[in-house]
């Protein structure tokens, strides 16, 4: 399916002919404005702003003097590959490297259609290719203004903008839904755990034949056909991807037989980022782990791996781990400290029913995130169809 857009009435225009670069200079201190937007406040790849700096409270750079108003389109011209385009709902000040843009004439280009012109991948590809500088590539106004695209007639702009803004509203609703579910889950977890007796130590649940250990100290270089090595960074996004693991040689793996992992092990990060956890799945069987991770192999008679990984990820335990870590050059958690961390003793029935209820939350959050993904994909498809490629 497609939108079946009839583009015969569309007109090739240059950005310069339809858009004004707003340079409304004000002094941050005396302007009476409350908020400012720096690069880090402007999200990549979506239009809505949810963070800002407060003038007079947060440090603000000397080059912040550009006033913007609600509905303006902000485009960050530094590091164009970050794809930062956003539309604020409030007024404030931004830095000189952020273009504040508005339509020259609402009868030619609708202001609410403009953000999507600059969100199309076709535009980003142009911006990246025309950026200058190496360490901090930027797009200057001249290059930005020279961008050409096909502009639909006003009524079509209106209906396309309605459609795309509707998608953005749904996306925001899904994001809110996800964070509400996360908050509810945290409350429920805290209450469920408070019902338990915390009279176990981590070492009490570890299998005798697979003692607590950390991983490979010197992994060496990445080899093509080696043994997969799970590192802290692989856990950043929640769970690692097998194909993206670094690999170590078979020899190195053999030296570190002790830390090979199997399904049902729980990994805990103990250097740098403390207390990130992951439950090893079957397809990672036989991989090894890096020095910054510890392997916990629970005895299922005492505690199921799922329950253990849930407990370790709970606020109560992660705060305890974080506090127990010492700081030298990088935060480090000793194995002996990890072994002594308190855990709740829970009957098999309690574990099973808790996990069952937890699945309700997990499913809800996953569905919310799927919805966000689906909306982003829909939006990208629409933008590609509307703005197409260059000839």
């Amino acid at each position, binding site marked *: *399916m497609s939108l079946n857009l009839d583009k015969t009435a569309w007109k090739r225009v240059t950005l310069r002919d339809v858009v004004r670069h707003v340079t409304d200079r004000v002094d941050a201190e005396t302007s009476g404005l409350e908020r400012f937007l720096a690069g880090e406040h402007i999200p990549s790849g979506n239009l809505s702003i949810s963070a800002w700096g407060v003038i007079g409270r947060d440090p603000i750079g000397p080059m912040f003097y550009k006033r913007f108003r609600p509905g303006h389109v902000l485009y960050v011209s530094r590091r164009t590959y970050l794809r930062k385009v956003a539309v604020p709902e409030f007024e404030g000040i931004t830095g000189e490297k952020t273009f504040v843009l508005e339509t020259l004439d609402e009868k030619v280009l609708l202001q609410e259609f403009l953000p999507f012109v600059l969100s199309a991948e076709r535009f980003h590809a142009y911006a*990246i290719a025309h950026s200058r500088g190496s360490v901090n590539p930027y797009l200057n106004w001249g290059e930005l203004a020279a961008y050409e695209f096909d502009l639909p007639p006003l009524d079509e702009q209106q209906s396309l903008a309605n459609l795309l803004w509707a998608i953005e509203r749904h996306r925001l609703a899904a994001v809110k839904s996800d964070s509400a579910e996360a908050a509810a889950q945290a409350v429920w977890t805290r209450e469920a755990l408070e019902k338990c007796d915390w009279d176990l130590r981590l070492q009490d649940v570890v299998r005798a034949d697979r003692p607590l250990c950390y991983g490979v100290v010197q992994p060496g270089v990445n080899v093509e056909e080696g043994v997969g090595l799970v590192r802290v960074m692989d856990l950043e996004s929640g769970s690692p991807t097998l194909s993206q693991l670094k690999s170590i040689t078979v020899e190195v793996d053999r030296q570190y037989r002790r830390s090979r992992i199997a399904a049902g092990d729980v990994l805990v990060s103990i250097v740098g980022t403390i207390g990130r956890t992951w439950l090893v799945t079957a397809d990672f069987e036989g991989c090894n782990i890096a020095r910054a991770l510890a392997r916990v192999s629970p005895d299922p008679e005492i505690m199921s791996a799922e329950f253990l990984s849930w407990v370790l990820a709970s606020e109560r335990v992660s705060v305890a781990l974080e506090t127990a870590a010492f700081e030298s050059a990088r935060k480090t958690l000793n194995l002996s400290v990890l072994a002594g961390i308190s855990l709740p003793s829970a009957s098999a029935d309690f574990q099973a029913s808790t996990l069952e209820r937890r699945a309700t939350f997990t499913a809800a959050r996953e569905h919310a995130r799927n919805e966000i993904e689906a909306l982003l994909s829909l939006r990208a498809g629409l933008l590609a169809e509307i703005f197409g490629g260059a000839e």
Partner: protein
Amino acid sequence: MTATSPKRITQLELESYLWGAAVLLRGLIDAGDYKQYIFPLVFLKRLSDVYDEEHAAALEVYGDEELADLPENHRFAIPDGAHWSDLRKATSNVGTTLKAAMRAIESANPDTLPGVFGDGEWTNKDLLPDATLSDLIEHFSTKTLSVANLPEDELGQGYEYLIKKFADDSGHTAQEFYTNRTLVHLMTLMLEPQPGESVYDPTCGTGGMLISTAAEVKRQGKEWRNLRLYGQELNYGTSAIARMNLFLHGVTDSRIAHGDTLSKPAFLNAQGGPQTFDVVLANPPYSIKAWNREVFAKDPYGRNMWGLPPQGRADYAFFQHIAKSLDPVTGRSAILFPHGVLFRRDEAAMRERLVKSDLVECVLGLGEGLFYNSPMPAVVVILRTQKPVERQGKVLFINALNEVSREQGQAFLRETHQQKILDAYRGFTDLKQFATVATLDEVAAKGFSLAIPTYVGGVMDSSEGEQIDIGEALASWRTAAQNSDVAVVDVLSLMRREASA
């Protein structure tokens, strides 16, 4: 001399051996300077161990110590007192002893080694106390770097590893030392260097591109030892490393000159003009501001035929230098540049002359992050002095923005990416959303801009992946939204139950 039994050194052992030396220097000198001290020591150790190896082999043949020391049994001469075993005996003024040994070896091998050890401050005790130098010497003494234990290209790879490590460690944009190997490999495949040809890199850094060329010819099973490799490098220490690096890779026919390519090109022909080469590979330093523009304005070598580059970026100075360095019949080059050279306005006049010269065969745009510490997307410009007839008056534009993979923040080209680009280059024809052939008239019509999106359209970012069918996308959103609604109801009812429990 002690004969040690051969023990093959694995790449992993070699790396930890080399890195271990860096650890000893930590805190004493700037990480950016490690290489100035570690490389010469490794090289000295290698020379001594290979000498011993040759000596032992000759002893087998002659059964006589004195005969075994004859120069014809050795690739390099090591004068008395300059052998590694002599250095180990030094207890005070170790730096002075080291420096003397290095100079003695350089003088004893006037055709091959002058200046190879660089100009490190060996005698500065504030920088390198005797104890540290002794530690370093003892550390390096733990392994025997004979050819049997460590074939040439393996030690060379160890050097490469260290170069790359230093690139990471001292926070330089490591281009100065290191260009992404997968990219160099691709550039080499595009230029197809042949046995016996001359290959030149005007800003050669540690010589990686030159080595890559030799390695590629070798990989193709062709004779690589008769390649003639030439490089020039501004930084003295780096140029010394390049020379060692080439030696250690077994490349004997090479000349690495030290100096500024723009103001004093080192390789000249009999008439005093720039020497020309069959193949030029280059990754010039990007947009440098500190270069001698006045001198270039009156360049005696005629390398300003397109015009005088702005002070703020010397890119077009290198560009013209390379164009002048191409053999008029066989010359071809691959140059890695920032995108700006394709469209920047203050270089428009020079670009116009470049286009009109019909040297440009291909403009290849690459994905982001192929350099250490810089996310910048790069372009490779291919020049050829004698294009085949069917390519004359035409330029191929390739948009390979998505032909890149990333691991641990480092981007690289997989075999499949390289193949796809290579096929497009060799095919020299239009490929939807990937490659476009434009005539010089078409380029002129675009104001001589070479910006790739002007010619090759519709490239989607890889994160957007394939063309998304809107119908499918809509259906999956509907499903996802319904599922999400049901899941929210489940959560709410669970919370109610818990609250009333």
